[in-house]
Structures are given as C-alpha cells and as structure tokens.
C-alpha cells in the first residue's frame, strides 16, 4: 500500500509541474508591439514571441522557415491586420501545419478589430497612390488609447482560449489600464504645450500618434506610401516646409537618412529617428517606454526649434 502511495505521489510530483507548464498558452505575434501588449495582459500564464523585430520595417519581413518553428506550436497568432503583413504572414500560416492559427480558426486574432483606424480610403483605390492600404492605416498601435483597447481585446481572446485564467487576464488588463491611464495623463501634459506643431514624417506611420498628441503632419518624405523619395518631390517638400515653417521631421529607424538630412540642411529642420515599435531602440522594451522614448525626443526637438 505504501509503495503504491509512494508511486502515485512520485507520479503526481512528476506530472503536475508538466501539466502546469503545458497550460501556458503559446502566443506568437507579428510585431513587437502586439507582443508587448500581450505580455502585459498575459503575465506569467503565457509565452509570447514576436516574428518581426522592432527595428525592422514590418511591411518587408522575410518569411523565414525558422518562424515556422514558432508558429507550428502556437495556440494563438495575433496579427496587426489591414494588410500590413500581407507580403509575409500568409505563406507562413499556410506552411505552419498548425490548424489552430489558420485564418478563421479560434487561434487567429486580427487585432485591428479593436482599434480606431484612420485613413480608411473612400472611393476608388489604385496603386497610383502607392502601396496604399485599402482597409485603413495599419500603424494604429501608436495611440495609447488604441493600446488599451488592444490589451482588452487580447485579454478577452486569452480568456476564451484559457477560461481557467480568464479572471487573471482581466485583473492584469485592469492593472494595465490603470497604469496606462496614469502614464497617458503624464504624456498628454508633456505634449500639451506643443499642440498643433507641424511635422513631416517619412512614411505614413504616425497618424494615430499625431492625432492623440495633437501634432499636425503636413507632408511626407515619400511621395506616395512605399515609393522612395524622388528629386521633384523632395524639392516640393523643402518648399512646403519653408512655407509652413516645419522644423521637425520624424523618421523610422529602418529608413535611409540621406534624403531627410538633405531636406533638413536646407530647411533648418531637425531629423528625429523615432521608433514606431517596441524594441526599435535599445531600452525601449515595453509599451510604456515606447512613448516615453518618442515623446522625450519630440519634446527636446520642439524646445530646440522654437
């Protein structure tokens, strides 16, 4: 009898930790921002990994087979949607051999459904407008209000996949909401003196950010989304910046600085390499630090170019 009890005790000791380990949801996200938000609400009950790096252009990620190793064991795949990942995520999903994360399956989550989407084209859309996103601008995570909505949506999905931890996820999202609201007050106060300041950006990555923090984006280094700068457009941009007295240019870390620097030298503007994603710069390793980093850069730039 004692031997049996010892055997079952040993079995339970061996199995219980593995069961607890197996319970952890494996989440893969397309970008680091979604991974950061998922980590905020998932805590220690999930494992989360991002496919793209924060300093990488999320439009042009190579669909490497090593990503399939992550995807084949995923319980949940969270994507930005709005065709941001159309060039690389669909073949990865198809090749993963994982039925749980196929589009339409319960483990596939298009996070764009939770966010406020800007720049949804009205009327006819053609490639004459460049690499336009017919469903709206996919860089929506750069508004903290959308960050809160995304966190709530992701928490809901995590609870659906792991009902036993649903209350844990809701508790985490409430805590995140509270911390984000406090940070938002601080960020809003920091940017209040600069409301209405005119800026130029390289790509259309910042509409949600600009809307939230009251910036006025008057022009772009790209003549059309996804189309590299041309001499004639650059000349037009210089004239526009001089006319509108634009003194700050926001550039993503994956774009070449040659044209922005040339424009800046002729307009007296300051070139800011802002990170649009968590992990885009050293130390920017969560959603809060993303805004801390970018807003500090902006504040310094606005102060020095009054």
């Amino acid at each position, binding site marked *: 009898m004692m031997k049996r009890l010892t055997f079952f005790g040993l079995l339970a000791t061996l199995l219980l930790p593995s069961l607890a380990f197996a319970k952890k949801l494996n989440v893969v996200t397309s970008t680091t921002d979604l991974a950061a938000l998922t980590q905020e609400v998932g805590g220690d009950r999930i494992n989360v990994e991002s496919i793209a*790096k924060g*300093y*990488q*252009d999320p439009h*042009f*990620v*190579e*669909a*490497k*087979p*090593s990503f*399939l*190793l992550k995807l*084949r064991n995923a319980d949940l795949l969270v994507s930005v949607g709005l065709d941001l990942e*159309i*060039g*690389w995520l*669909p*073949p990865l*999903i*198809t*090749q*993963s*051999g*994982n*039925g749980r994360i*196929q*589009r*339409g*399956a319960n483990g596939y989550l*298009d996070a*764009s*459904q*939770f*966010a*406020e*989407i800007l720049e*949804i*084209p*009205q*009327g*006819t*859309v*053609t*490639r004459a407008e*460049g*690499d336009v996103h*017919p*469903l*709206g601008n996919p860089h929506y995570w750069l508004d903290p*209000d*959308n960050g809160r*909505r995304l966190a*709530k949506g992701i928490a809901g999905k995590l609870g659906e996949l792991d009902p036993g931890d649903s209350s844990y996820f809701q508790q985490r999202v409430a805590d995140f909401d509270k911390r984000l609201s406090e940070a938002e007050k601080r960020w809003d106060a920091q940017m209040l003196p600069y409301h209405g300041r005119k800026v130029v950006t390289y790509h259309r990555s910042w509409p949600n950010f600009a809307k939230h923090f009251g910036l006025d984006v008057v022009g772009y280094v790209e003549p059309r989304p*996804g*189309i*590299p700068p041309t001499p004639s457009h650059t000349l037009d941009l210089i004239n526009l910046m001089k006319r509108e007295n634009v003194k700050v240019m926001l550039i993503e*870390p*994956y774009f*070449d600085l040659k044209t922005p620097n040339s424009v800046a030298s002729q307009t007296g503007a300051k070139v800011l390499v802002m990170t649009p994603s968590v992990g885009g710069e050293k130390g920017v390793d969560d959603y809060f630090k993303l805004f801390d980093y970018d807003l500090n850069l902006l504040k310094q730039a606005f102060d020095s170019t009054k």
Partner: protein
Amino acid sequence: MRKHLALCVLLVAPAAFAQGTSPNAATNENAALEQKIRDMEDRIVALEGQVRMLKAQPGSAAPVAGGTSTQPAAAAATPSPTSTEAQAAAQAAPQEPVRLGGAGTAAAKALNPDISMIGDFIATTGQNRVVSAPVMEMHESELGVQAIIDPYARGDFFLSFGEEGVNLEEGFITFTALPGGIVAKAGKMRSAFGKVNTLHNHVLPWIDRPVVSGNLVGGEDGIDDAGFSVTRILPAPKGLFLEGTGQLFRGDSSDVFKSSQRSDVSVVGHLRGYGDISESTNLDLGISYARGHNDFGSSFTTSLYGIDATLRYKPLRRAIYKSFVGRGEFIWSQRQQPGAAACLPGACPLGVAPNFQRAFGFYTSADYQFARRWFVGGRIDRSDRARDARITDDGTSIVLTYWPSEFAQVRGQYRFTRYGAPISTLSPTGKEDANELLMQIQFSLGAHGAHPF
C-alpha cells in the same frame, strides 16, 4: 432695485456655495464624466471594428453589398446592442463603400478570391543559332486566383498565358489544418525538386532559367505535374529547421518524365534544412530526388538527384536597401535509353545517344542589392545534356535590375553561352558561341499572394 439684487444673490449664492464647498465633488464628477466619455469612445471603436470584420467576412458581404443592410448586420453581431450603439455602428460605416481599382465594392472584393495578373515582356538581341527566341515577345502573362476555401484549406490557381495558348501552371488545394503538422496538397503543382524548379518566372533573379534547368529538369515548365504532395516539419536540434516533402505525380513533366500507362507515376522527394547563422544571415540546404518514366516508354526511367544551397544576408535595420543572396544547385541525371542496336541512325531522335546516360550540371549565382531600387547579379552555368551526356553547355550571365516600385521591375541581362556540339554541323570547332542581350519588363496588377521563402 433691492428686489433685483436679492434675486441675483439668490441665484448666484447656491452656485458660489457649491463651488466653494465641494471642489472634490466637482473633480470627481469631471473624472467620472471623462471616464464615461472614454468608455463610450471605446464602445464606438469596438463597434467600428465589428463592422469592419463583418464586412471582411464573405458570409456577410452580400447584405452589405446591397448598401442598405449594414446597420442590421452590425447590430445583429453585437451581443447586447443598445440603440446608441446601433446608431454608432451605422455612423461608423463609411457612407461610400471602398472600391478597389474601380472593380467593385469592398464587399464584392471580400466575396471574390485575390486576383492578380503579372506581365512579362522580353526583348532579345544578339546571335544564338542553337536556341532561337523572338526579338520581342509578351513572354508570359500569369493570372493568379487565390483564396481561402474554408477553415481547413486554401486554393491557388496560376494560369500562364503565352502570346498564343494558355497553360495551367499550377492549380491546387492546400489542406492547412491536418493533424500531426502535415500540410498536404492535391492538384497540379511545381514539384519540390531543388530551388529553381519551385519558382515562378516572376520571382527568378534572372530573365531566363539556368542552363541546367533546360538540359536536365524540363526547362521553363520544369517538373510540373498533377498529383499529391505531403510536407511536414521534422524533429531537429534546437534552432535548426528540417522539413521533408514527398510527392506523387501522374508522370508527365515536359521532356523529363512521360507516362505511357497509368502505373508510370513519378515521385519527388525533398529534404530541406535551414538555420539562422545570425539575425541577418541564414543558410538553406536541400537534397532532392525524382524518378519517373521517360519518353522511350514504360521500360525506361529517368532518375534525378539534386543538392541546393542558398546563403542569404539582409541586415534587418536596412532590409529594404541592402541584401545579398548566393545560390547554387548541383543536379545529376541518370536516364535509361535504348541500346546501340535499337538506336541506329534514324531509329532514335536526333541528339539522343544510345544506352544509359549519366549527366551532370550546375549553376551558381550571386545577387547583391546596392540601393532600394537596384540589384546587380551574375550566374555561371555548366551542364551536360540529358539525352547525350557527351555534350556540355556552358554559360555566364550578368544581370542588372531596377525596381521603380514594388509592383514593376526592369531588368537587363548579358548572356554568353558556349554550346557543346560534337557534331560539326554547328561550327568547325565543335562549339557554338552565343552572345545575347536580354531586356525584361515585369509588372503586377492586383493582389498577388506572397510566395514561400
């Protein structure tokens, strides 16, 4: 006057009293109001998202396309809609539906598969007396029709139009939700033999295909046949990606395999190993095998063996400006042909040597992206001919590519080919040289799905 003054005091006093006595209450009220507005904003955004998702679902697209039933559709999907929410949803829906390229509404797009057309125009100049190509041709127009069929499968069709005639390049169903991590395909498809054989023309880094593809693996069409394919990621040490593919085909592929009876099926196997050397550099290795019957009948078989290697470099921070790809494929062909007695002059086709033919060929290439729109590359070719392994062709190419945008490219290629020809009809030296300049314009219309890495 006193009456008026008393009235003013009566009106102002309560407000002044309220302000003066309960500032905390007012602050709390403001905070509550702010929270309420924020909650309402969130609910509106959530409803907008639901409307977008509903419009993207094929099942709900038809009512939306009608243009009048957006509101009920959105409301029906909301768990407990209030009239405010329903109104918000109605307001959230764009007044004018999105039209894509003027082809229809967003709802119609949601119902239809992704449709694309890729044009491939080639102009050739110079001299080549062995393989002739027209001075200008609309070489290929590839129509792609792709969609998710249901939660378990997707379908892909690629129809290749020449200037005359059409060919089903690929048309297959992929079962994506099979147990055990298996991905299966059925239909007509490019086989998994090596690297170049799997690639469509428009994703090649050159205008033409390597000489070894033409001599040993069926040329432009390659091993492209109707059948089944099963792929699975295999267990491997951490950080290493290992994938096995097994394919069974009818046995008809260009001039490589020919099925004379139903049992003349062909098989293809491919084992792929991949590893990230760093986040910017990776190495992709593969070994391939193919076997089928050839055009001399059911008693004659052709076996192919291949090794492929690809080294890629792309720094992630500058991924759109700089990259390097080095490739190489080495292919061995073993082809059974009639013996000398049966293959007397006139009995066998021209260029066919008697008996068992063992041929070998390879190409190596390098492509370097030196600016966002510019690529330069080169390729070295050498290959025996499958039907007469005594003849060896060599070639060298230099390629320059310019991308005006993601959706168009202009390419120039200088190609030198030295055809080996022991029969002295071509030139006194037994060799025939060809110097050619090729120019290509490729352009893409519509949503062409990304191809596997």
